[in-house]
């Protein structure tokens, strides 16, 4: 697991994508709560199309893409808000106008100059390779600014989102804050656009907020949960896209959808009163699965743990034990029966009966006595001439080259 992540993070482009992606998804989720509640979800979509147009023009003119896209999209954000407040063109129609218009300009500019190529595809659906070093610095700076501004104006954003008229009566300049929210969204969208893709970026705004709203009932909780969900989905999506070579943006969105449906299911079950029943079943299932797990006897409490197993033998019968010790052999002088065991020398000074460990049986060849072995097997009970004894039916017995502590004190 650890090796896997070290390998993944050894690629510079993935580290860049990770840094920028985490910050962008955090910002998008925070702003998303307010946008979704204000019925402005489509603004994200509209702005992403405008950003596509701006990036296309910038790449054709060989100018730094972010430096062109950020101001253009900021302008579009202000324009969109102004348009949706204007009663002549309603909000959704205004967004459709601007977004398709910008998309058309972008596509035309690209196809006339460089032709439709993989660049266009990358802009539309996102590419993990998109971030250059200077982009990363700019993105981190802008994303941090968005985060800090959001935290500073959190209370105002809540008041304006909950009831704009009231906030205005109380003396808050609500128009200013609407524009402020739209501008923060614009910056966030431009930053995430090339990784997530113009067609997919608005999902970062919408999904975490919707998912959080299904499970949380306080605004603060919804905001925090949305941030957490967004970051989690991004990480998971990035790992998924790394393992299965899928497009990053699409995998993040798919994880978001899965979590959204799962939370919807949870909320639905809760509403119907089934949630507790299901939870109990899941916990029971988990316990049953834990039953199957191997119990490992470690060096530190070797004697204590073996004593515990002998004392409560009925609880442990049928369970799989795993431990290391000295393979030893003992022959009963009266009956001539051979006993095999894997033990460590216990705290007693000389009596063999104080050695801690278990008698073992298995159907393959036994190793040499005094070999250091790792034994894995099922604990069972048998009748040894009228004495009920415990033995371990081995599943594996490995001879290890390095010997552990032979003398254990506790």
């Amino acid at each position, binding site marked *: 697991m650890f090796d896997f992540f070290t390998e993944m993070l050894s690629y510079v482009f993935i580290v860049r994508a990770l840094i920028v992606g985490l910050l962008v998804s955090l910002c998008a989720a925070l702003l998303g709560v307010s946008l979704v*509640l204000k*019925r402005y979800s489509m603004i994200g979509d509209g702005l992403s199309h405008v950003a596509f147009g701006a990036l296309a023009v910038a790449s054709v003119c060989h100018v730094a893409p972010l430096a062109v896209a950020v101001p253009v999209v900021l302008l579009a954000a202000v324009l969109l808000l102004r348009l949706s407040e204007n009663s002549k063109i309603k909000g959704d129609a205004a967004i459709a106008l601007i977004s398709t218009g910008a998309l058309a300009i972008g596509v035309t500019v690209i196809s006339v100059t460089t032709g439709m190529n993989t660049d266009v595809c990358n802009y539309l659906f996102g590419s993990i390779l998109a971030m250059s070093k200077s982009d990363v610095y700019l993105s981190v700076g802008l994303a941090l600014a968005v985060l800090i501004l959001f*935290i*500073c*104006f*959190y*209370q*105002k954003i*809540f*008041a304006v989102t*909950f*009831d*704009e*008229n*009231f*906030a*205005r*009566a*109380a*003396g*808050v300049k609500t128009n200013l804050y609407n524009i402020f929210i739209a501008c923060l969204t614009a910056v966030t969208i431009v930053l995430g656009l090339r990784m997530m893709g113009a067609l997919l970026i608005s999902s970062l705004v919408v999904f975490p907020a919707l998912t959080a*709203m299904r499970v*949380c*009932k*306080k*605004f*603060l*909780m*919804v905001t925090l949960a949305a941030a957490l969900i967004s970051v989690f989905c991004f990480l998971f999506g990035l790992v998924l896209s790394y393992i299965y070579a899928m497009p990053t943006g699409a995998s993040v969105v798919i994880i978001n959808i899965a979590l959204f449906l799962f939370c919807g299911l949870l909320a639905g079950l809760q509403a119907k009163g089934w949630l507790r029943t299901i939870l109990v079943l899941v916990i029971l299932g988990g316990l049953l699965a834990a039953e199957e797990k191997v119990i490992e006897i470690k060096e530190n409490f070797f004697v204590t743990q073996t004593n515990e197993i002998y004392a409560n033998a009925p609880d442990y019968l049928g369970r799989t034990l795993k431990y290391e010790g000295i393979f030893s052999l003992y022959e009963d002088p009266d009956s001539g029966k051979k006993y095999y065991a894997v033990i460590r020398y216990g705290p007693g000074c000389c009596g063999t009966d104080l050695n801690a460990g278990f008698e073992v049986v298995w159907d393959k060849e036994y190793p040499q006595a005094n070999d250091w072995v790792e034994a894995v097997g099922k604990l069972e009970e048998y009748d040894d001439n009228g004495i009920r004894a415990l033995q371990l039916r081995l599943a594996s017995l490995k001879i290890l080259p390095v010997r552990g502590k032979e003398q254990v004190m506790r």
Partner: protein
Amino acid sequence: MFLSCQNAALAYDGNIVVSELNFSAEAGDYICVVGENGSGKSTLLQGLLGLKTPCAGKIICSADWRESSSGYLPQQTAAQKDFPASVSEVVLSGRIGRLGWRPFYSAADRKAAQTNLRLLGLERLRGRCFRELSGGQQRRTLLARALCAAQKLLILDEPLAGLDPSAAQNVYTLLKKLNKAGLTIIMASHDLPGALRQASHILHLQNKQKFFGPVESYKKWREKKHV
């Protein structure tokens, strides 16, 4: 003079709903706006708050009022049905006007919110989700928020709608007390007997200003009109 309308008219969706408004309010007044449904009460209140600009005439208010935060209880909650917020978050947001450039509320803000929650009997509901409350409980929550916001002026649009008689009585008592303490209250109401008991002035609207004056002269005006 605290606030005055000079031949003002207000429109809703491009249609003039209320016109010929000529009245003025002094600090400490308790004005009840009465009239039938659609007579322009809510529109007038929004005009007084500056949420609407008059399409004719003027609405003038003194500078110290414009700068202070007014408490407003809207008739219909602009907040959506699926909005996730707890009662205490909503009430605390009433202090938004006093936040200034500070990012978070102070202990004094929290204390004020606490007091207003108690005044309206909402203490036990403070952790509940606003959207899950009954109509009357939502109304009281929004009233508590308006009280948090009101520094000099409290504008209430049908504060009693959906309240049971005892809760309504409590609200009346509370408003009277606040008014005596110096708060100016302008309230739209359908409860005429209550208005006559409570208010210092009555404004009667029927898409035009029909009457404005002290309660006693309003009573006489009504008798004359009906007889």
